[in-house]
């Protein structure tokens, strides 16, 4: 068993915000089964803030804990603040990740970013009409 921090174990055993959002404002998907982890983030935006964040993850204990932590960190933040979440800040909040897991499983911030970009892209398109 990889040596995970207590915080990682806690989020893995009790992940927050698992699921999908119906009619989400943005969706971000990253990863592939070859490297072992896939994450999909769903967001709902209200007044430029992340009103709801949910995720689905295929992957190891670290991947699930990372997804849970990112969703918790992002919820309620403005889009600008949420965009500042990085793999490093997620790992820090989780009290560290095993070295070999840092790159492969730490995709949560990227997936969230993609979801926000998806939202911003759609908004732009909508604005053009």
């Amino acid at each position, binding site marked *: *068993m990889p040596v995970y921090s207590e915080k990682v174990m806690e989020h893995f055993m009790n992940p927050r915000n*698992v699921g999908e959002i119906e009619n989400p404002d943005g969706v971000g998907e990253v990863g*592939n089964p070859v490297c072992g982890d896939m994450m999909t983030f769903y967001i709902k935006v209200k007044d430029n803030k992340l009103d709801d964040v949910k995720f689905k*993850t295929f992957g*190891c204990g670290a*991947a699930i804990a990372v997804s849970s932590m990112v969703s918790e960190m992002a919820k309620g933040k403005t889009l600008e603040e949420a965009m500042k979440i990085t793999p490093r800040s997620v790992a820090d909040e989780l009290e560290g990740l095993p070295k070999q897991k840092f790159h492969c499983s730490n995709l949560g911030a990227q997936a969230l970013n993609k979801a926000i970009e998806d939202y911003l892209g759609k908004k732009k398109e909508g604005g053009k009409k």
Partner: protein
Amino acid sequence: MKKVYLDNAATTPLLPEVREAMLPFLGEDFGNPSCLHDWGDTAREAMENARAQVAQLIGADAEEIIFTASGTESNNFAVKGLALAQQNKGKHVVVSAIEHFSALHSARTLEKWGFELSLVPVDKYGVVNPEDVRRSIKKDTVLVSIMHANNEVGTIEPITEIAKVTKERGVVFHTDAVATVGTIPVDIEELGVDALSLAGNQFYGPKGVGALWVRKGVRILPFLDGGVQEGGRRAGTENVPAIVGLGKAAELASLNMASRIEHLAHLRNRLLTELPNKIEHVVVTGHPQNRLPGHASFCVEFIEGEAMLMLLNSRGVAVTSGSACTSRALKASHVLIAMGLSHALAQGSLLFSFGLDNTSEDIDYVLEVLPPIVDRLRQMSPLYAKFTKTGKGGK
């Protein structure tokens, strides 16, 4: 909490009788077997007795047994040592795609040293076709190394048939029998091989000890240079307590093999048949019949092995997985990929390996705790969501 150990492929526990046999050599009988005094004599006699016990288990002559520090060392020694000893004859070696890394990576090292390497493929059950071995042998082939049974999927390879091919072509044939020696009957004459690796912690002996059997007349380059221990083929003061333990474990394995196999096969058959009935979208990996008696391996679709393993551990069940995430290399099992499984499916690999202490209640317990764990992870899985929505993305 109930504790159920189902990872005997990683290591079996030490039998109390084996521990008892070892204890004097961790105490008063501490002598170096190379020494010519009473202390040396006691150690040497115990070590030679163990050599005879190990030889008897595989039908060999005691003097053909070389003690090593592990199955990994035995495989390194065999693959490199047998090839290097014949390099003036040729520089081509043949191994299967599903070898244990200790054999596969040794062959890769030979490649770096100027040898040519051919990998023999396997079918969907992980079986090597002897005809593929025949096709890969060339004029300058000096070594074929194919494992007796695969440690990840339990498949037993047609070693006797492959040996007929290597004999015809006059090529030295080594088999990594770490997963089989002490578990199922292994007889070197029946197999027809020239060299064979085994390890103590696979059949209730201690860790840190293994052996390599090399047929008389077959040349091997010594792995460790130094003194004349092990007939000058493996220098270094022998690990006498562990060797004594290996010998005792070999003796007990010979005595009790039939009843052990019956016990293990009963548990394995239950899990192989009942688990796929309890959980949808589960694939049995390895050969359905020709497999190790205590070995049940699966791939659970849409979820990843390490997460399953961790949740099983939280319920007291110890298993292993061949997923990328459980390996430090972060690559899915080379065995499952060689068998043609997709990466996504290989990520869901789960291996249960039974031992003498396991009971039918242990199977009941696994069948009780695993389905909710799989359910829970599938509820989190984007692959499962895709599958339930579109019916696509299975297997």
